[in-house]
């Protein structure tokens, strides 16, 4: 496993070269071999993997598209909509809000405000209060959790405001009285896509390390659960080991220590892209070349994938399109039309072979120059 690494003793004793660098990243040059044998189409789960919070059947985002006549009506309505996020400090949230903003603008609706509770329940409760003061006709929101924010979310319908949720439903809220739709990525589907990509890199009887978030959180739970379920069903030969991080700034350290204690690990699943990049940097520092698969296409993870580095594949969400669907669902509700309860966007498998296309699909903009230039000719990156 460690063959490419210069002998440790030799390095410590090395007197000839004062600085030796660059050897670690080149260790990954052959990284695309397996990934290039995978067929993107075959990785897409047939249909949605997860079901709704109350077992509802999934609907597609087409179910809330506005017809020309509805678009006219919406423009005439000059609606006011507010957004309460879980955080605004990550790319995902920015893309969702961009989708919402663009769509509301297109239909002449006003976005009265976007709030950022930085994942803190008490702040989100406060900001729901702030948002109600602004008297929007609808609020689009992602709950930080589904227990402790429930009472605050109840006050939205009590104030006569429509509610479009993302990902999960706070406890006790009823469709269609308390909320009018949930728009969600297929979290389990994302887990399944990630598991399938990773499995291709894991030898018979190998060990997969799962690097999970140590705090009970709906989205990450769903992803990890499906990764486990998929391996247990389809690759029973593989042993699953897990390590959790609680401090999101320490995922790299935690993974480095876990790998030191578990040298038999032959590949890693990291529950989202930012900690995955910390894990990649820890692997480089240790001179280890292990395949890493994660969820969410961020620019850093995309470049690592393009250059055939440690990231071998990504299961992506479509946050911009999710934002579009949320805004459309809000407008439909305000027009008096009832959207279905559970609207799901499927997982997008991202490999070197469909990277730039996936980037456009996720970000709704052209990939940046760094990503394009990271696609080296012989990697099969497109």
């Amino acid at each position, binding site marked *: 496993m460690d063959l490419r690494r210069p002998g440790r003793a030799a390095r410590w004793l090395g007197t000839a070269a004062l600085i030796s660098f660059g050897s670690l990243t080149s260790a990954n040059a052959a990284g695309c071999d397996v990934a290039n044998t995978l067929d993107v189409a075959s990785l897409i789960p047939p249909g949605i993997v997860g079901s709704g919070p109350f077992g509802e059947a999934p609907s597609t985002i087409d179910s809330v598209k506005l017809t020309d006549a509805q678009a006219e009506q919406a423009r005439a309505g000059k609606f006011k909509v507010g957004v309460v996020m879980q955080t605004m*400090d990550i790319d995902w949230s920015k893309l969702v809000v961009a989708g919402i903003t663009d769509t509301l603008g297109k239909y002449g609706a006003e976005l009265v*405000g*976007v709030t950022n509770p930085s994942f803190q329940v008490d702040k989100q*409760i406060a900001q729901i209060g702030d948002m109600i*003061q602004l008297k929007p006709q609808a609020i689009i929101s992602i709950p930080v959790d589904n227990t*402790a924010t429930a*009472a605050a979310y109840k006050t939205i319908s009590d104030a006569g405001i429509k509610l479009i949720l993302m990902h999960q439903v706070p406890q006790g809220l009823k469709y269609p009285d308390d909320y009018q739709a949930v728009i969600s990525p297929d979290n389990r589907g994302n887990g399944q896509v990630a598991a399938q990509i990773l499995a291709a890199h894991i030898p018979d009887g190998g060990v997969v390390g799962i690097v999970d978030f140590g705090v009970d959180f709906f989205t990450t739970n769903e992803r990890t659960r499906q990764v486990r379920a998929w391996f247990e069903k389809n690759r029973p030969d593989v042993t699953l080991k897990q390590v959790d991080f609680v401090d999101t700034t320490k995922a790299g350290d935690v993974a480095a220590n876990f790998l030191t204690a578990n040298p038999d690990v032959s590949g890693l699943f990291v529950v989202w892209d930012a900690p995955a990049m910390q894990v990649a940097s820890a692997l480089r520092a240790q001179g280890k070349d292990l395949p890493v698969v994660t969820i969410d296409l961020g620019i850093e993870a995309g470049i690592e994938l393009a250059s055939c580095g440690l990231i071998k594949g990504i299961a992506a969400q479509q946050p911009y399109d999710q934002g579009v669907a949320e805004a459309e669902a809000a407008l439909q509700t305000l027009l008096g039309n009832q959207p279905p309860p559970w609207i799901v966007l499927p997982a997008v498998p991202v490999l070197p072979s469909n990277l730039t296309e996936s980037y456009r699909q996720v970000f709704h903009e052209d990939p940046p120059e760094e990503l394009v230039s990271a696609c080296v000719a012989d990697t099969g990156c497109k």
Partner: protein
Amino acid sequence: MTSDVAAGPPRSAADVLRSTLLSGRMLYVAFVALIVIFAIASPVFLTTENFANVGRQTALVSIMAVGMTLVIISGEFDLSVGSVMALAGVAAALAMQGLGDVWIVGAVVAIATGAAVGLVNGLLTTLLSIPSFLITLGSLSIARGLALLVTGTRPINIVDESYYRIFGEGYVLGVPVPIVWTIVVALAGIVLLHFSTFGRKIYATGGNATAARYTGINTRRVKTICLVIAGTLAGLAALVLTARSHAARPDAGAGIELDVIAAVILGGAALSGGRGTVIGALIGSLMIGILNNGLNLVGVDPSLQLAVKGLIIWFAVALGKR
């Protein structure tokens, strides 16, 4: 900068400003200025509803800031209040689940948990003569870890309706209970600190501990009691938070200690002890709360909000300094 301008040429208006400044009242001026700015910028800011809203939002920080004021005046520090709030909330929720869904059970357990952690903080700090900064940094970790451990990191539901009403969602004479609790705690704090012998002992302990000891004040006991009060009030804050959210989360309140300390210092307390008032801390807490509320109402971009919040902290302390 601003204070230099205010204290500039000897005109009568400037003299008024100057005397206000010298008497340390510029904080109130800054506070009013902030309200005026937001009142102009947002039509909904000055509504009764929004006042109730701000009062509810600042209740946690205000309640804990009263305890922190005592601790800081006594020359100590409490970094653990956020974790203690989480632990007390979790303990209350688990107790109600295990012992019976009666609000009094949750209330007693939360308050007792807070007071117990405060007592440990106080005893370790004073008996071992270790800076409370380090002791409470340790308890910050321990309380948070305990809260995560006993819940398995999951939120715990609370189902008792009267618990919701008494601590989170009810009204007294039309005033939301979180605000009522804030007022009760603030009044008690004012009486204790400014109208009792014990209050004078706190100032003496933080102002000059050696001198205080010579005049027969048991500074260890004073400091311990202050830390116990801070813990107890973190327990009360836990009740308000969990009653509003109908659940207790083990990760609640992370980082809130910085807001609490900022409120107290903004209110004119000295980090080195011996100086500070309850009213100042409340104004400090309200300023931070109004800032968060107003920036949201005006619809400022969240990234920009962070920068603006920092600038206003600079501005407010520059105005409010003595």
